[in-house]
Every structure is written in C-alpha cells, then in structure tokens.
C-alpha cells in the first residue's frame, strides 16, 4: 500500500480522499492555491504545499507544480479527485512517467472515453445500446423514411453542421417526417450554410440513470447498482438517489450486467460510471466518466463499500476482497448537493460562513469542507456540501432528508438548502415522477 498520497484537488472531494487515506494509514499531502491556504483539507493533511495563485489553470490545473509538490514531499501516488485533472489522460500518463502511481484508470481508457464519438463506438462494440440514429446524413425522403423505420418514431431531425438545438425538428410519424424534412433542411442551410441532416431517436422525457462500477484492471468488475441523476438544472445535477424509484428488477439486472460485462471486456481499472438515458423501458448509453463522481456517496451508503478506499487499493495492485454476490444493496440513499448559490436566482454566493451546524444522528452523512468562519472563495465551483441520507426504504429516507435539511445551518451566504427543502416535499419528487426536464420546470415555479 502507498505511504503517502498527494491529493490534487480541493474542497469536499479533497477532504473525502484525505479521509479514505487516513483510514488506511496513508499520509496525505494537500496542494492548494493561495486562495485555499485555510481550507479544511489543508488543515487536516499531514503536509501541504501552496502550488499557485487562485486561478485554477495556475494551481489545480498546473501539472508541473503538482508534480513538483509530489517530488518535494516524497509522495508515491496522486489522487486527482474529480474535475480539474481527473479526466486528463495526458496528466495520468505524465504522473506515471514521473514514477508516481495515478489513482484512477489507465490513460488509454481515459482517452478513449474522453472522446464522445469514440466512446459511443466502443459502447456499441461492447454491446451497449446507444441512441439509435441514421448511419450518416439522409439525402432524401425515401432514405429518411427507411432510416426512421429502422430507428423507430419519434425521430429527431438534426443538422449535421448544427449545435445548440437549433434547426432540430421532431417527427412523430411518417407524414410528419415528410412535412418536416424539407423545413429542417432549409433551416439547416440558412443557419449553418449546409442543408445536410441526419436522424436520431427522439427521447422527450428521459431519465438520467448511471451505473457505478469498480474494476481491478485484470478483468474483475464489481457494480454497485444504479443512481438516478435526473434532477438537473442547466446540466448540473442537484439531487441524486439510489435505487432509481422507477426501475424494475429485470431492467436493473439487465443494465448492470451489460455494464459490468463491457468494462470486464475493456479490462477497466478503478472507479467508473456508465451514464444512460432511460425511457419507456429502454436504455441508451450517453457517456462514461472515468473517475470518481460527486454522487458516489449514495452508492457507498447502500452497498457499504468505500469507493475511494477501493480506488486506493486497486491502484496499489490489491485484488477485490469480495465478489459481486457479496455486494448487498440495502435501503435507499439520497444526496443533496448544497451549493453556495441563491436558491431562486442561482447566482453564486461566495463569502464568509458565519454559522455552521451540520445535521447529525442516524442515517445522516455530511461530506463538506465548510467550517464556521470559512471564506468560500469566488474562484471555484459552488458545491460546498453534500448531505447524504440513508434509510431502509425510500419513504424513510425522504422523512430523514426533511429532518436533516431542517437541522442544517449555514449562515452568512446563500445556499441551495431552501430549494432542497421545497424539493423534498414536492409531490412529483415524492412519487418519483420526474425526468431530466422536470427540475427546470420546478425551479421556475413561484416558491
């Protein structure tokens, strides 16, 4: 096992990695920008090194500074956390070239999954369904109709040169396709200077469901079930839960088996997540995250497996100490991302925390680097705390969530706690009746 790990990150995730190291008897090195000199992970780490000024490109993204810090402190491995350099294949390769262990997947797997087109091709090759579409552009109505029949209605007509949703049309049947194809082609020409379009299955109310996986790099794969991360605003997840409230056992087994088989085939190492859209009983791969995720704690709560500890063990070459059949997923877990943001306008709210009191008691976990008097810097992302609750049932979990949100005090700055409080009593959320568009609508309703 490693003697000393450098944590190339900040905030709650740096603290999360520190805790896992500490509990394995591994010494920690915190690196930080000048803005984070008083951060919790810096205070708790065995050693700390200031690596640059506040802008992330000069500190948390500064590869030379991070490797120098690892060298001068004698670290033997680097954990990238999430965000920053965590999915940078060149960084992972450079870390290994300099003789340190990279606590994460191989640079090849990071690179493969970092390219969306290559990732989808790999998924298809590994037998994982992706959103069906025409193989290339559809030149005329006959080709479009044949393609749409193969894909299945409704179909989305998209400009090959397009982006940002402009020029997209939804056709629910053949007559609609006949009517909309020329419209889409004309719009494509006028918006993008090229009338070429292609077709894709249209999902109007998908859920975002992802599978948490761990690989030992030797073909051994363990999955920790799925997470439903459909509650998103501006593509930012706000609340995640496991298990997904609408998936049935057969769907769950099919998807987890598919995901595990694919990663076994790849020989994947470390923690990773396959993300899917789910609608009407069908799953479609969208991307793979080759890193730890913000929402990993809910999978830990239901499985009892410490994912960061597993990452450390795997990076040190240790085999899994258990099999898939030893993994029991018990109860229900929810994570609320608490951001330093106004809960109505979502404007960032950096500043001094004047009161801090996290909730406690049975089934409540708080992953946060906040403390009373901490100054939330304006330079980085606004996630300041993750409130994770676990219960034997989804209902118990929801009741506990409300109780914990009621106890949580963060003074001096705006946070999304009031939004989570509204969410925790919203009928559609309670019923599990939501898709990836629902939260956008919910937050735009008057409180």
């Amino acid at each position, binding site marked *: 096992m490693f003697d000393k790990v450098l944590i190339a990150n900040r905030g709650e995730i740096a603290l999360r990695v520190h805790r896992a190291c500490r509990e394995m008897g591994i010494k920690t090195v915190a690196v930080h920008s000048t803005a984070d000199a008083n951060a919790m992970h810096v205070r708790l780490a065995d050693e*700390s090194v200031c690596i640059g*000024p506040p802008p992330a490109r000069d500190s948390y993204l500064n590869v030379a500074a991070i490797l*120098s810090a690892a060298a001068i402190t004698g670290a033997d491995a680097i954990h990238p956390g999430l965000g920053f350099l965590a999915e940078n294949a060149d960084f992972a390769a450079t870390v290994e070239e300099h003789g340190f262990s990279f606590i994460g997947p191989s640079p090849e797997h990071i690179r493969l999954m970092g390219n969306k087109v290559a990732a989808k091709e790999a998924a298809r090759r590994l037998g994982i369904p992706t959103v069906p579409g025409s193989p290339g552009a559809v030149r005329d109505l006959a080709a479009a109709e044949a393609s749409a029949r193969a894909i299945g209605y409704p179909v989305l007509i998209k400009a090959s040169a397009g982006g940002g949703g402009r020029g997209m049309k939804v056709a629910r049947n053949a007559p609609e396709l006949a009517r909309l194809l020329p419209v889409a082609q004309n719009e494509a020409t006028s918006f993008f200077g090229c009338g070429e379009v292609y077709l894709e299955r249209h999902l109007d109310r998908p859920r975002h469901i992802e599978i948490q996986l761990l690989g030992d790099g030797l073909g051994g794969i363990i999955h920790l079930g799925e997470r439903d991360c459909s509650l998103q605003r501006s593509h930012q997840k706000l609340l995640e839960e496991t298990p997904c409230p609408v998936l049935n056992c057969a769907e769950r087994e099919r998807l987890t088996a598919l995901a595990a088989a694919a990663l076994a085939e790849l020989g994947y190492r470390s923690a990773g997540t396959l993300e899917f859209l789910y609608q009407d009983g069908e799953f479609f791969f969208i991307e793979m995250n080759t890193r730890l995720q913000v929402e990993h704690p809910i999978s830990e709560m239901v499985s009892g497996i410490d994912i960061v500890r597993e990452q450390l063990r795997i990076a040190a070459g240790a085999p899994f100490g258990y099999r898939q059949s030893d993994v029991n997923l018990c109860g229900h877990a929810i994570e609320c991302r608490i951001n330093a943001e106004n809960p109505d306008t979502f404007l960032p709210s950096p500043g001094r925390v004047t009161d801090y009191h996290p909730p406690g008691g049975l089934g409540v976990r708080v992953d946060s680097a906040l403390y009373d008097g901490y100054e939330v810097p304006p330079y980085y992302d606004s996630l300041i705390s993750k409130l994770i609750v676990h219960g034997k049932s989804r209902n118990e979990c929801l009741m506990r969530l409300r109780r914990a949100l009621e106890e949580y005090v963060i003074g001096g700055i705006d946070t999304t706690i009031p939004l989570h409080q509204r969410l925790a009593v919203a009928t559609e959320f309670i019923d599990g009746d939501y898709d990836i568009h629902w939260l956008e609508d919910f937050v735009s309703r008057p409180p």
Partner: protein
Amino acid sequence: MKIGGRGPPFPDADLIRTLAALLAETGLSEIEYAVGDRRIRVARVPGGPNPGTVAESPAPARAAAVEHPGALKAPMVGTAYLAPQPGHPPFVRLGDSVAEGQPLLIIEAMKVMNHIRAPRPGRVTQILVADAQPVEYGAVLMLIE
C-alpha cells in the same frame, strides 16, 4: 507550508540559521517549529548576543516579509538551491549588494533548474530559505532592499 517529506539530515544547520535570523529580526525570544515528527526550538535569552538588526516591530516575521516591498517570492513549487553546484559558494550572502538580473538562487522543478534573478538592484537583507529545502508557491525567499 507544512512539509514532512524527504529533506537534508536533521538537525539542519541552515534551518537553525534561518530561525536564528528570524528571532533577531522579530525580537522574539523563542521559536518552536515542528514538521511531521521533526521538531526544532530556538531561543535567545533577552540581553544575550544579537547579531542581527534590532527589530522595529515584533510582528510575525513571515507575514511581515510577505508584505515587504523587497520580498522575493518563489514563482513556483520546487527545491531551492543557494549555490550553483553542491559544495560551491552561494550565489549571494547576507548583506551582499546585487545588480538587477543577478542570479540569487535556483529552484528545481520537474528536473529543470530555474535561475531566480534579482528583479532590481539592492542589498540582500534577509535570506529566508535554506539550501536544498523545498519551497512552495509564493514563499518569501529573500528580502532585497
């Protein structure tokens, strides 16, 4: 910075010299300094010999140095070397006058020896880093007045 990693054998004479200079500068009677399981304490009885300048203000030295207009700060993380080669005389000594652009020390980072040069002419009034010691970004290395 708290660094408990590999370094020169302990006790480190240069570190003691640096702390002694800080004692003098700040008018403190004692500094205790611990890094990992390494601990060093330097003290000077009031009225004892004081080779340094008499401190005008007893404010914390590092904090004061950071604010000092003549502070030369580390532009990168790495290992500081005060001499061009091991065993050679240092680039500069306390009290030396230096010209703009004159090399003052080296910071090794990623196997590259980065020469740190005087940003302006002046006199070296403090050397706040010891030879072969790690430095972090923004650490005050010397005062050039």
